[in-house]
């Protein structure tokens, strides 16, 4: 597996921490997922109940790499400021950079994304940009200092899977040495397996596990799918073909007419 800014992950599953029915179920889901990375965010804290402090203790206990996000940011300034705040709180250079450009699809504002990625990379951040499968944008992000790219599979929270197989295949082929993570849109383990079979280095998902009827079981299912897909990719899958090719030997077949 390609490394992520010099960090080799135990596996290609990155899991979000939002929307679980309870903190206990979140912890259980992470344990069953064996995920190597947890995404987290920053939100307003209350001086009265200090809920974020309990969540921070829970996350620290997961024993995984922490990837803070800039979710909900719509401007370069907002995203850059959030990244600085996240670096201080989580004590990591990693930042999942989101600059949202459209409300219905939550697709990234790729122009703002490239600009924010440049500013943060120059400031020593290790940026994981949430982007589209657009090759030109991808190239600009690399030029801006990103060493990882995270194209969407489908709109965040949609569960539609890999929406543009051609575009994602092209991206994988075009950037053979760049760690690529499918971020967002996955709804089923089979979709995660498909991404890994295509040679993506990791998948990042949240809603598919958190909103499942049994999040811990679904987390385990995703773990198996990611592992299966990764193994299948390294096993060099056969090329598909249009016409049938008999698998049982033709030579030696009896004449029984």
């Amino acid at each position: 597996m390609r490394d992520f800014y010099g960090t080799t992950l135990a596996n290609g599953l990155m899991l979000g921490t939002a929307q679980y029915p309870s903190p206990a179920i979140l912890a259980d889901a992470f344990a069953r997922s064996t995920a190597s990375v947890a995404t987290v965010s920053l939100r307003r804290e209350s001086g009265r109940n200090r809920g974020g402090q309990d969540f921070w203790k829970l996350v620290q206990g997961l024993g995984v790499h922490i990837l803070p996000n800039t979710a909900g940011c719509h401007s370069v300034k907002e995203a850059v400021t959030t990244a600085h705040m996240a670096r201080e709180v989580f004590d990591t250079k990693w930042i999942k950079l989101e600059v949202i450009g459209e409300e219905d699809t939550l697709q990234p504002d790729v122009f703002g994304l490239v600009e924010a990625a440049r500013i943060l990379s120059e400031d020593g951040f290790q940026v994981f940009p949430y982007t589209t499968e657009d090759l030109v944008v991808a190239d600009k992000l690399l030029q801006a200092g990103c060493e990882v790219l995270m194209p969407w599979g489908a709109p965040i929270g949609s569960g539609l899977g890999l929406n543009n197989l051609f575009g994602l295949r092209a991206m994988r082929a075009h950037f053979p040495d760049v760690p690529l993570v499918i971020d967002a849109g996955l709804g089923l383990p089979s979709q995660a397996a498909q991404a890994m079979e295509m040679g993506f280095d990791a998948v990042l998902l949240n809603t598919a596990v958190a909103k499942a009827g049994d999040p811990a079981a679904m987390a385990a299912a995703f773990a198996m799918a990611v592992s299966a897909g990764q193994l299948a990719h390294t096993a060099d899958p056969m090329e598909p073909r249009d016409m049938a090719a008999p698998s049982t030997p033709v030579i030696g077949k009896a004449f029984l007419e």
Partner: protein
Amino acid sequence: MKLLLNGEAVEVEAATLADLLERTGFGGAKVATAVNGNFVAAPARAAHVLAPDDRVEVLAPMQGG
């Protein structure tokens, strides 16, 4: 002094950002701060003098995807 703390109007006597955090229940908490949209790092809070109507954001780790 009147301030906007996490979007809510508050009346509090606090000369600096560090004072404000102590007086509003954030003492010792794992938080990051911004004033008027600009990040203020933890070591700079004690020297950051607040002015009336400042917009102060106090953020903490939360669930995220």
